[in-house]
């Protein structure tokens, strides 16, 4: 059975801003599903709808077999939500916050302690501290405890790692994997492409539209171009020069490198490309073929959708 089924959901803000457009996807029970997209893609809007805080303009959503819009009261008991911004009571202590949300869900801390214990252990030493005085990572762990305290069947995490340091991010994803092993379905959104590979399946979202849904491996396998990477002394002038490149290609800066995906037969294309660079007077490092990352795939998919 699908834990979550979203069919043709639309949302327009102020009659003009199309925040979500025909969003359709399904999440299987026990899946760790990632919603990957840049800021402003519509991730938070979708989360607000799925957590019963916002009504969609049209579309049908079923959560664990319940109709989200009509049975929202029942749905609320079964879902946990970690919003994008810290929203616990800063003037209540760690323990008081947890207590409060446990009771709000008609549960208690002891009942589901085994579920949150690995996370709780890390914040327990600060249980008397005010939540507002915790460090960013600790706040996030407390919020996660509060969202899990009633043992939800689906957990929604809206950009849980945005603004979190790399070590804590890694730790947080490990926690998500353990939550998954407890049989809880997880929907997590992130603007970081590298995190996408840690999900079972991901949906790429841009401008309120889902551009593709698949496992990260499959998305990478379906990369259509042949990807190369190389360094350049002056990346700006290189990108400018590439505008005149006669070959079918897609190029973009990638850190201090330039990534270029060719949609040509490389046997003939590569000599042409090298010649082109020489004519343009572009100095460059070694041009190496590489495996595409999720980010490369995302860029390719966005590009293709733009051409359509």
């Amino acid at each position, binding site marked *: 059975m699908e834990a979550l089924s979203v069919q043709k959901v639309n949302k327009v803000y102020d009659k003009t801003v199309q925040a979500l457009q025909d969003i359709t996807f399904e999440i299987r029970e026990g899946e760790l599903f990632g919603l990957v997209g840049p800021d402003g893609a519509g991730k938070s809007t979708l989360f607000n709808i799925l957590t019963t805080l916002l009504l969609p303009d049209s579309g049908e959503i079923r959560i664990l077999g319940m109709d989200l819009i009509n049975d929202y009261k029942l749905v609320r008991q079964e*879902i946990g*939500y970690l919003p994008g911004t810290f929203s*616990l*009571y800063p003037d209540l202590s760690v323990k008081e916050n947890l207590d409060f949300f446990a009771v*709000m*869900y008609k549960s208690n801390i002891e009942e589901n302690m085994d579920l949150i214990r690995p996370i709780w252990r890390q914040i327990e030493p600060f249980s008397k501290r005010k939540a507002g005085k915790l460090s960013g990572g600790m706040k996030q762990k407390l919020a996660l405890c509060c969202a899990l305290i009633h043992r939800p069947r689906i957990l929604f995490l809206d950009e849980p790692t945005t603004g979190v340091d790399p070590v804590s991010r890694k730790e947080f994803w490990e926690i998500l994997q353990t939550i998954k092993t407890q049989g809880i379905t997880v929907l997590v959104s992130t603007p970081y492409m590298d995190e996408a590979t840690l999900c079972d399946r991901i949906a790429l979202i841009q401008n309120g539209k889902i551009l593709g849904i698949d496992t990260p491996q499959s998305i990478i396998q379906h990369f259509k171009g042949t990807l190369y990477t190389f360094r350049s002394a002056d990346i700006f002038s290189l990108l400018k020069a590439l505008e005149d490149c006669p070959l079918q290609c897609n190029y973009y800066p990638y850190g201090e490198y330039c990534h270029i995906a060719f949609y040509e037969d490389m046997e003939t294309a590569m000599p042409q490309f090298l010649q082109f660079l020489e004519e343009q007077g572009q100095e460059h490092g070694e041009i190496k073929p590489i495996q595409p990352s999720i980010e490369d795939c995302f860029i390719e998919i966005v590009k293709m959708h733009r051409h359509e």
Partner: protein
Amino acid sequence: MRTILILIKKEFLQVFRNPLLLSILIVAPMVQFMIFPFCADYEIKVLDIVFIDHDGSSVTQDIIHSFDASDIFVPHGIIHNKKEANRMLKHDKVDIIVEFPNHFEQDLMNGNATRIAITANAINTTKAGIGVGYTQEIIGGYMQEFKEKNMVYTSAEETPANVNLSYIYWYNEQMNYKNLIVPGILVILVTLIGCYVTALNLVREKEIGTIEQVNVTPIRRWQFLIGKMIPFWILGMAEFILGIGIMKLVFGITVQGSIPLLLGITAIYLLVMLGLGFFISSVSENQLQAMFIVLFLFIIFVLLSGLFTPTEGMPKWAHHINYLNPMSFYMEVIKKIVLKGSTFISVQKETIILSVMAVLVNTGAILSYQETSK
């Protein structure tokens, strides 16, 4: 039940951890009580007076001397120049000018009509009214004496037109203004706690996002609102009792009527104000907006309630608006029970109206509170 209890517990924890709010709750009533009744005092202590004497007779001298006997009047001498007197009035040196015409004594002895002109600075209307009243009183008193002494028997019709003997009691010696203003402050206090603090509290939850976190829980909106209301209702009642205590200890004003009745009606009034506070917070997005709406309503409520200006003097349309003003009904109740010692029968109407308002406002608050936005 457990849900509501933890909401109440949470609210009290937050109130007691907020040093600013706590000090506002305790210090604000003290300060209001200690300062306001002493400032908002309509009692006139000093009236500066100057005389223009065109007659210079013994009668005018006698009248002028009779002002010396008064504690209130401070005479600024006798001058003969009207321009000079007007200048003094203009520069706030004097509040009142008394001008005696030529041949005043002669006319008086002959029983002819004569007039004394009293000019008052009416920027402060209360002061002018009281000043003119006092002046008339003193001159009138002298005239009475004068007539008896000089056996000038005049019939009522012949009484000189402007030496009028009517005694106008602009200021009632028996009426202590503090008795009115202090219970009024009590009303303001309860209103502030009920409406202001509640509205700001709920809208703050909106600002920091905790309300969303609460909204995704299965809790019902009425549970949430009740959990919010009870703590502030208790705080409001505590504040009211504190106010009654200060009223008794500092001003010696004891509640003349039944205290349980007073508390009962206050409880209902607080419900109206709490509901209004919630309603305001659900239509505003941040504390600033909420504050402006509360302030806007609060000023209208206070000005129409009859605390500063008597409602009797208001035009009819203002009376109609006042039917929507819960504060005016509550003010009426407070005046009746605290000062007059009225029983339930005489505040029955107000109690019923406040109860209806409480039901309506709170229904509106629950309906306007959005768990899910569109």
